[in-house]
Structures are given as C-alpha cells and as structure tokens.
C-alpha cells in the first residue's frame, strides 16, 4: 500500500532548500526561532516524556495483575501512578498537539511566515524543558506520591516526597503554556494571510484558538495554586491546612478551575485534527462548519464553569453540587454537535482509509463512548457511587487516550509527509492504528465494569473478586504498548528511507499543502492570497497533485 501512494502522488523535487537543511549543527536548532523547528523540538521532548509516563503505566498494570500487588510495594505503586498522571497530563497531553502540530501548522495554515513572537516561542520551549528537568529531577530523587491532583493536606503536610520540586516543574511548564497561548491568539488574530477571513480558517485553527483561550485563562490559576501549596509546604503556614482554618476544598476548587478546562486543552486540538482528517479523506467540505467552529468556543467557555463535578462527594455543598451538575450537562451538547457533524460529513463522501483516517474514525467512536460515560458522572446520584472508582479512570482515558491521543497520532501521521517530506509505510500504519484501537478497548472497557462494582482507583492492593477484570485490563495494556511502539519504529525509519512525499500526498485542501514538503524556512514561495472557503473539495479539482 505504501508504494501505491508513492506511485500515485509522485512529485518532482522542486527545491532542496527547506527548514530542515537550511542550516546545520546543534546550535542552529537550539537558537532557532523557526516555528517548524520549535515544533519538532517539542515533539522530541514530549515523546521522551510520553515514554516515561508509559513505563510508569506499564509497571502499574503489571502490579495490578495480582490483588496483593505482583511487583512493587504500595509506596512505589503510589509513586508510579503519580508519575504517570503528572507526566502524562502536564508534560505530554497538554503540550502534545498545541506545541507540536500547533506550532508547526498554525502559521502554515493561515499563510503566515511565522508565529507573531518567534523568540517568545523559543522561550516557551526552554521553559517547558526546564519544567521537564524539574519533574525528572523529582522522579529521579524518589518520585512524588501525591497523585497528579496534589490534594492537601496530604501533599502539603503528610507526604515525605519531593512535592515542591514536582510542583515547581508543573509551575514552570505552566508558563510555557501561557506564553504559547498568548503567541497563538495573537498569531491567529493578526497574522492571517490576505483573504483568510475567520470563516475561511481550517477548523484546526478554531480548535487551537479555543485551546489557547484556555491556556491564557486557566493556566495562571493552577500556577498560583501550586505556588500557594509550595509555600504552605515550605513555610508551614496555613493556607489550606484545616488545623488553622484553611479549607482543603478551596485548593480543589482552584485546582479544578484549571484542571477541568485542561481536559479540553487535550481534546479540543484533537477535535480540530479530526475535522481536517475527515474532510481530507472523504474529499468533502465539513458538514456544519460554523457549528463545529462555535462549538469549540462554547466548549472553551463552558469548560470553566463545570469544575465542581469533580467534587460532588468531597463535602462541597448540595446547592453547589446541583449548580455544577446542570452546568456539566450543558458542556455535553457542543461535544455531541461535533460528533454528529463529523458523521454527517461522511455522507456521500469519497472515503479512503489511509492510516490517519483510521485514527480519526477511531477517535469518533472512542470519544463518543468517553463523552457519553461522562453523563454518568455529571448525574449527581450515579456520580456519588462512581466518583473515585475505576469507572472514572476508564471514562477519562476514553477521552484522553481514546480521544486526545488518537487525534494526536492521526495528526502526526497526516502531517508527517509535510513535516519530514517523506512517506511512511501505510500498511504498517494501518496495522498500528488497529492494534491501538483494540488494545485500548481491551485495557479500559473492563475498567468501566470494575468501577461500577466499586473498585476504588489508586489502590495498590485490591479485593480478589476484581482480579479477572484487572488481568484483562493489563493484557489489553500490553497490546496497547505494542501499538505505540510500531509507529515509533516505522516513523523513525521513514525519516531516512521513506519515499519523497511531494507537496500534497493526500490530495488535501489547506494552505499547508500548497507549499513544499518540507516547507522552506519562510513557509511559502509566494505569499498566499486566499480566495475560497476551507475544505473546498467539490471544486477546483485541478489543485490535486
């Protein structure tokens, strides 16, 4: 199959100067202000962090094969799930699509030479790397055992692990997010090419815009919250300490004010990617463009007023519980609108099934399940039973792995030829997509069931009757791990040995496909002027190379 694509979309080499070979040497990367290079540098760092988080997850699943713990002591298990959570949330999922694909694609998609503040962009990367260094230092010096939620008073008074260092790492990485958000918002507002009006923007850009709003409005709050937590831990002053009048629930309010919207930082970009993939591989204009665009903004806004549904059983007042429950139901609507519109886009399309499309269809399926199981947790009475159990774990993994990560992998596969100028073996990619889909469901579907049975999360040991489902889950995780390793191999292989991709191997619309692969440093040979709407597949077939 891979050769088939290469044959069909063969492209003569038009120019051999591009952003990758414009200059050489480590310095030319470390001091670059080119958004494309910075995107690749992010890709390298988050792939490394993903590996760390993945290893922690593997060890956890291995330990849970036996009710009494097959591998490690409870103390170590607690550090493993904390490491997994902190690394995957703050150092992988949050920066995943925005910092890599967002950085690479936003200027290309809107027809700009670069982001608005290239030096700030580089500074963001350095901040992120500094944050990663602190996190790695905390892990190497023993690891923290607070969970990724850092709830006091455990994290502030009782944990004997380097909580402050880890919190500092998250704090610094947060500033990377903030600056990236500022950069993207200004870029999207001010750097669009002539004719690129708001309603001609690809939906990926709308999604990135909504994501950037959450970066700007939410991230400072987690920063100040962790700052206060750190001060409490260092100086023993009572901000959240109940012994001297502090309220540990206030920490939870402030924590979730960011961390619930953060879920949408992870899923919105994937939704944007899926909009691009569905249209490209069904050669069809998106169904309900403005509904998808505005639902992204609606999600960004509503995501800030639903956080209390994490706290229905924590001693939050009944009244606040009711308010947050009704608001949480509201956020389900724009997500539903998106799913229906993507499905409707397929109608009468010309659908082909290259690997990115498989990821996109997998995304829709898994996100649908993830979203619908969210209703169980927005409903007060069922949440009381399910809160803090494996049902919650399964639900958010369906959103964050089944959703966010599938979108990320789909996006990486879709734009890989643009990023590297090379094609990867498509058959392998399809196999990997199938393995990921199957492995994922095997891992996390049993967790819904074991959750309703009442197995609490974060248990290093558990009653024996839950073992069967835990073994299923662990077995699925090993399949899933294989699914992640395969792309790592063939994508790396393709960088050197893959056939040249040409400008537009998929026959996709969008400004990024009109330039060279890989693009030149200044992105476009001729500054683009936009004269048509996004996804104009029904017309101007001639542009298909």
């Amino acid at each position, binding site marked *: 199959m891979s050769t088939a694509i290469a044959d069909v979309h063969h492209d003569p080499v038009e120019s051999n100067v591009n952003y990758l070979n414009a200059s050489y040497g480590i310095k030319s990367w470390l001091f670059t202000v080119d958004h494309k290079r910075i995107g690749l540098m992010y890709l390298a760092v988050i792939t490394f962090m993903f590996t760390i988080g993945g290893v922690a997850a593997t060890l956890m699943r291995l330990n849970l094969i036996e009710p009494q713990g097959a591998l490690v002591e409870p103390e170590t298990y607690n550090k493993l799930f904390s490491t997994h959570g902190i690394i995957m949330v703050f150092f992988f999922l949050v920066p995943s699509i925005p910092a890599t694909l967002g950085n690479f694609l936003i200027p290309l998609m809107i027809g700009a030479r670069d982001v608005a503040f290239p030096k700030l962009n580089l500074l963001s990367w350095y901040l992120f790397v500094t944050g990663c260094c602190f996190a790695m230092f905390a892990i190497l010096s023993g690891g923290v055992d607070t969970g990724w939620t850092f709830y006091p008073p455990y994290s502030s008074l009782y944990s004997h692990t380097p909580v402050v260092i880890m919190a500092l790492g998250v704090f610094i990485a947060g500033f990377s997010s903030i600056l990236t958000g500022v950069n993207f918002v200004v870029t999207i507002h001010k750097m669009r090419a002539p004719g690129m009006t708001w309603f001609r923007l690809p939906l990926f850009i709308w999604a990135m815009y909504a994501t950037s709003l959450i970066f700007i409005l939410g991230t400072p709050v987690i920063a100040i919250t962790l700052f206060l937590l750190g001060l409490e831990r260092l100086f023993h002053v009572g901000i959240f300490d109940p012994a001297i009048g502090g309220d540990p629930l206030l920490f939870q309010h402030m924590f979730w004010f960011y961390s619930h919207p953060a879920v949408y930082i992870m899923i919105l970009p994937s939704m944007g990617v899926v909009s691009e993939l569905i249209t490209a591989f069904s050669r069809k204009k998106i169904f309900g463009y403005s509904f998808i665009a505005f639902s992204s903004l609606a999600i960004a806004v509503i995501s800030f007023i639903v956080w209390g549904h994490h706290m229905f059983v924590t001693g939050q007042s009944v009244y606040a519980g009711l308010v947050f429950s009704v608001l949480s139901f509201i956020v389900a609507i724009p997500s539903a609108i998106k799913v229906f519109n993507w499905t409707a886009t397929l109608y009468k399309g010309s*659908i082909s099934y290259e690997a990115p499309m498989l990821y996109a269809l997998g995304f*829709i399926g898994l996100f649908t399940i993830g979203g*619908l199981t969210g209703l*169980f947790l927005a409903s007060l009475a069922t949440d009381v039973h399910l809160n*803090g159990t494996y049902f919650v774990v399964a639900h958010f993994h369906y959103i964050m792995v089944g959703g966010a990560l599938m979108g990320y992998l789909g996006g990486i596969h879709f734009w890989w030829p643009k990023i590297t100028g090379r094609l990867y073996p498509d058959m392998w990619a399809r196999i990997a997509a199938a393995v990921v889909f199957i492995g994922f469901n095997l891992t996390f579907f049993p967790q819904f069931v074991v959750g309703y*049975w009442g197995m609490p999360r974060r248990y290093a040991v558990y009653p024996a009757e839950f073992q069967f489902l835990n073994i299923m889950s662990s077995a699925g995780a090993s399949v899933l791990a294989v699914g992640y390793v395969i792309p790592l191999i063939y994508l790396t292989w393709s960088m050197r040995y893959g056939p040249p991709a040409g400008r537009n191997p998929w026959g996709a619309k969008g400004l990024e496909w009109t330039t060279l692969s890989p693009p030149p440093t200044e992105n476009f040979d001729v500054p683009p002027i936009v004269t048509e709407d996004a996804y104009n597949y029904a017309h101007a*077939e001639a542009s298909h190379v």
Partner: protein
Amino acid sequence: MIGLAQIGLHNAAAALGLMPFAPPDASSIAGDVDRLYYLLTGITVFFSVLIFSIIFYFMIKYRRRSEDEVAPETHTSMALELTWTIIPSLICVVLFVWASALYVQESRPPASATEIFAIGKQWMWHLQHPEGPREINELHVPVGVPVKITLTSQDVIHDFFVPAFRVKKDALPGRYTSLWFDPTEVGKYHLFCAQYCGTNHGDMTGWIYVMSPKDYAAWLANGEKTESMAQQGEHLFTQYGCIECHVASGSGRGPSLVGLYGQPEKLASGEMRVVDETLIRQAILVPNSVHVPSYQPIMPTYQGQLTEEQILDLIAYVKSLGSQERNGK
C-alpha cells in the same frame, strides 16, 4: 504461579458466571441508583451503536471507488443541526432532574436515623456507636434501620465508600460531613476508602455487617459494656470545666447549652448560624469566632487538648441536651 492461575480461573468463573453486572443492592436507594445507571447505560449503548453503525454504513457505501472521484458539495442542514442540538439537550434535562432529585434525597437523612460517627485516620476507620461500642474497620448495623454516618478525619482527606449501598462521602479534617443509608439486605459488604490518602490507601478497607435485629441485639449485648457517647461527653464536660460557665439555667458566664442543638443563633458578627456539629466543634476549638452577643468572648480554645473522639463525645452530649429539652416540651 499455579496458585495464581487457579485464583485467576476462579475469578474468571466468578466474573463470567456468578458475578452480576452490578454489585449487590443492599440499601433502600441502591435500586434507584441502579435504575438511573441502566437508563444511562441504555442511552450510551443506543448512541454508540447509532454512531458506529452510521459510520460503518457510510464507510462501505461511500468508499472511494476511483482516484479521480469527486464528492458532491456539502449542504449543511439547519433542521438536522437543530435536531441534534435539541434532542441531547432534552435528554440532559431529564437526567439532571432525575439524578438531582435522588441526590437531594441522599443528602437528607431521615429524622429517625441512628447516628454513627466515623473517624478516618491513616490507614484505618474508627467507628463509634452512640450507645458506646467502638469498632475498627468494621461496622455492625441492624437491617431496616436508617443510619446516618457523621464523618471526620484526623489527618488527611479520606472517603467512606460502601459500593453495596451506593453511598460515598469524603471525610475531611476539621469538618463534619455526613451520609446515610437504610440497609435492606442482611450480609457482609465492602467498606473502602475512596479518596487517596497515602501509602496504604489500598489497605484502608473494612466490612459493614448488616444483621437481623435479633443478631444485632445479641452483638450489642456481647460487646464490652461501655457508656454511651453522650455519657462520656458529660464526664468530659465536667472534667474540662465546661460546666462551670455553661450552667444549665443560663446564669453562668457562658450560655446554657440546653435545647441549643438544631436552633438558629445570631452570632456577634451578625451572622445567622444553625447550631450543628460543625458549629459546636468550632465553638470548642475557636470559641471567639462563633461567640454570641450577650456573653463576653472569654472562652479559651481547646485546640490540641481534645482528641477527635472526645470532641465527638462532647458533641453527642450537647445534642443529648437538645433532645432533652425537646422531649420536655
């Protein structure tokens, strides 16, 4: 390894053959929660199957047949958009109303409920019956009698979770929270800590024994003879000198506590507060923050002098004074 395999097989059999879809239903609300859960499951299955089938159908019907194929122009339909906005919204309204009604019911214990106190500490549950018996990681209750559990924690946040009763509530340091259940089936049920609380969080488990009234009476009789919580509270009330100021007639330097529990009081700060467990606790530990205008703010703090158990005993005593008065009327 063979043993492991045996356990695995045993559990596989249990899971496939014997284990039902849900944990046992052992409280008055468990069935209601399950019905809502099954409705939600139904909605999830319906929409997932709908979306999956449509996608599969389109995938096959509209697969690309030639490389030059051009798909027709997309026409967005406002009618469709409105349909799939309004129908999910209506479903959400129904779910919200149903789930919230049940939740409000869950959050209001019946007046007849027996009150049991639970203190979470790393990594065990300390449970206290009003009649006096104390238990560790076990709770014996009679079937058919509503039980209100008042929760607090001595250190970090814990969570009292009984899957068979479908109830759960965090136990917070420095505050009282509560949950209630009406056990309907005799049996032995899991008690879990469901809020991560440190190293041995996974071991912070216990059992709830729901007994027939006869068995429960026998269990109570067999136990060590202890004074009730209110009686122990009364001793503390004398021992710590509370009684010197809080004279029952109201003529002391502090207000009388008779009949106080459950009544609204206007504090010196102008705030209206109903006298509940949290307020009594605050009055013992941080007296000036809740002092009433007609008395001088001279009461010293008892922070650090009383254990959580002793504070609960004192609260039980103050509550018993409240009920004496009501009974008197």
